C-alpha cells in the first residue's frame, strides 16, 4: 500500500476491502457513472431519434436534388456543394495563417515581452467569443469595403476563418511545444538557420498535432450556422455554387431552414440532412482523435 501504489489507476488494496465498499462510497461511484451515462445516453438518443425521424428520406434524392417547395422532391445538393466551397475556402484562408501565427509565437517571439503576452491573452479570449459575433464582424467588414450582396462564398469563408483561426493557433502551438528542444538544437548545431530548422525539423515533427487541431477546427466550422445566418445564407438556392462570389447556403443553414418549416415533410428532411451532417462531423472528429492517439510519440 505504501510505496507500491505508483499508479492512481491501480486499486488501493487495503481500502478495497473496507472503506471503498461502504454504502456512501458505492453511491458516489454510481453517481459518477450516472454523469457519464447522461452524456453517452444523450448522444445515442440523439442519433437514434434523428435517424428514426429521418425515416425513408435518407436516400440519394437528398444528395442529388435541389430544394423544392414540395418536401418529397427536395434535396440538399446546393447546401452540400455550398458547404464544400465555404469550408474549402475557409481552410485556404485560416490554415496557413494560423500555422504562421503559431510558429511566430512559439518559435520566434520573445516570450517576456508584454506585447506578446497580451497577444496570447487576446488569442485565448478570441477562441471563446460567441460565433455569432464573428458573423457581425463579417457583415461589418463587408459593408466597410462596400459589398452589397453579403451572401457570397468568400464572405462566409471569411467569417468562419476568423472564427477558427484562434483554435488553429492554439492547437498548433501545443503541437510545436511538444517537439523536444534537442531536435532543434541538433539541427542548429549542424548549421541550419532557425527558419530552416523550423521548416525541416520542427514543423514536420508537429504535423500530427497540427492536423488534429486543423481537422477539429474545420469540423467546427462545417457545423457552424450562426455567423452565416447573419450574412443571409438562409436563402433558397436552386443552383450549384460555382465560385468565390457565388451565392451559397450550407448544410447547417439548410437544416435550420427546414426545421423552421411547418410542414412535416420538411422536418423529415431536416432530420435526414442532420444525420448526414452528424455522420460527416463524427467521422472527422474520430479521425482527429485517432491521429492524436496514434501520434502520441515518446521522444
Amino acid at each position, binding site marked *: *500500500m505504501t510505496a507500491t501504489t505508483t499508479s*492512481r489507476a491501480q486499486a488501493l488494496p487495503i*481500502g478495497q476491502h473496507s472503506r*471503498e465498499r461502504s454504502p456512501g*462510497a458505492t453511491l*458516489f*461511484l454510481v453517481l*459518477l457513472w450516472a*454523469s457519464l451515462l*447522461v*452524456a*453517452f445516453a444523450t*448522444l445515442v438518443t*440523439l442519433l437514434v431519434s434523428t435517424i428514426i425521424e429521418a425515416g425513408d428520406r435518407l436516400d440519394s434524392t437528398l444528395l442529388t436534388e435541389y430544394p423544392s417547395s414540395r418536401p418529397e422532391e427536395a434535396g440538399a445538393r446546393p447546401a452540400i456543394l455550398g458547404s464544400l466551397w465555404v469550408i474549402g475556402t475557409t481552410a485556404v484562408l485560416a490554415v496557413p495563417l494560423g500555422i*504562421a*501565427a503559431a510558429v*511566430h509565437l512559439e518559435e*520566434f*517571439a*520573445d*516570450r517576456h*515581452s508584454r506585447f506578446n503576452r497580451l*497577444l496570447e491573452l*487576446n*488569442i485565448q*479570449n478570441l477562441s*471563446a*467569443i*460567441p460565433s*455569432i*459575433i464573428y*458573423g*457581425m*464582424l463579417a457583415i*461589418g467588414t463587408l459593408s466597410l469595403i462596400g459589398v452589397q450582396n453579403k451572401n457570397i462564398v468568400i464572405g462566409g469563408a471569411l467569417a468562419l476563418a*476568423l472564427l477558427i483561426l*484562434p483554435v488553429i*493557433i492554439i492547437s498548433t502551438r501545443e503541437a510545436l511545444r511538444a517537439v523536444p*528542444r534537442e531536435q532543434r538544437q541538433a539541427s*542548429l548545431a549542424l548549421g541550419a*538557420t*532557425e*527558419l530552416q530548422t523550423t521548416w525541416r525539423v520542427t514543423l514536420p515533427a508537429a504535423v500530427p498535432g497540427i492536423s488534429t487541431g486543423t481537422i477539429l477546427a474545420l*469540423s467546427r466550422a462545417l*457545423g*457552424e*450556422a*450562426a455567423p452565416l*445566418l*447573419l450574412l443571409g445564407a438562409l436563402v433558397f438556392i436552386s443552383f450549384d455554387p460555382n465560385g468565390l462570389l457565388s451565392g451559397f447556403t450550407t448544410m*447547417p443553414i439548410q*437544416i435550420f431552414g427546414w*426545421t423552421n418549416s411547418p410542414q412535416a415533410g420538411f422536418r423529415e428532411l431536416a432530420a435526414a440532412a*442532420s444525420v448526414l451532417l*452528424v455522420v460527416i*462531423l*463524427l467521422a472527422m*472528429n*474520430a479521425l482527429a*482523435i485517432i491521429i492524436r492517439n496514434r501520434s502520441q510519440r515518446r521522444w
Partner: protein
Amino acid sequence: MTATQHLRSGPAEQGRSGLPADWGLGRTRSRHGETVIRLLLRAAAGLSVLITAGIVVSLLVPAIGFFQQVSVVEFLTGTRWAPQFADPSFGVLPLITATAWTTLIALAVAVPCGLGAAAYLAEYARPRVRRILKPILELLAGVPTVVFGFFALSFVGPALRDWLGIDVGTFSILAAGLVMGVMIIPTVASLSEDAMSAVPHALREGSAALGSNRMQTTLRVVFPAALSGIVAAVVLGISRAIGETMIVAIAAGARPQMVTDPTMEGATMTGFIARMALGDSRVGSLEYDTLFAVGLLLFLLTFVVNLISIRLVRRFRQEY
C-alpha cells in the same frame, strides 16, 4: 521589443531554456529572405489584434448610433423588448432573463455531469477505460448545434410533455437549456479532468495513508486542490452557454418576454440576433442598429467571463 530584436543571436532567447541569451549557435545575422518570412510570420500573429479591433469597431459604431437614439438606462432597465413594433420599446431585460434561464439550466446539467465524468476519468478509470471513454465524450462536442437544436425541438420538448407531464409548449426555455447543458458537458469535463490530473500523486497517497477511501480523497483532497481549474471550466461553460445561438434559436422560441418560469418560451440575446438577421432591416435603420447594441452587450458579457476563466486557468497551471 523591436530594439532588442536586432541584438538577439540565437534560438535561446525564447526564454524557455533559462539559458543566457548569447548561448545560441544560430547565425548572428539572418539572411534577407528569412527576415521577410519572419516579418510575414509576425504579421500573421499580429492579425489577431486586428480581429479584436475589427470586432470592437464593427460592434461599437452601429451601437453608438443606437445609443444616440435610445438611452443606455432605458436599454438596460426596460422590461419590454419590441424593437420592430410601431410603438417600439428597447428594454433588454427580457432577453437577459431568457439568457440567464437557459444558462442556469444548462449549468445545472453540465456542471454536475461534467465534474462527475471528469472525476471518474481522472480518479477511478483505469488507463485503458479512460482511453476509450474520453474520446467518446469528446465526440459529443462534434455534434453541430443545429442538430442539438433540432433534437431539443423534436425529441426533448415532446418527451418532457408526454413522458414527464411538464407543461411545455412547442418552444421552451427548459428544453433548450437542458440540451445546451449536454452540449457543454465535454467542455466542463475536459478542462476539469486536466485540472484534477494535474494534482500531484503525493497528495492522494497521503490521503490514502491516513485511511481515506477513494471518494474521500476525491472530494476532500483532489477537488479542493483542483478548484481553480474546476472553477475556470465552469466559467468557460457559462461563456459558452451565454453565446450559444442555434439551440435557442430553434428550440427556445422567439417571443421576448420576462421569463419567470422555464416552461415558458423566450428570446435570448443570441436568439434575438439570429431571428433579427433573418428579417431584412435596412442597413443604418434603428432596427438594424439594435442588432449591434445587443451584440455589443453579448460581447462584453462573454469577454469579462472569458477573462475570469483565463486568469483562473493560469493560476492552476502555475501551482504545481
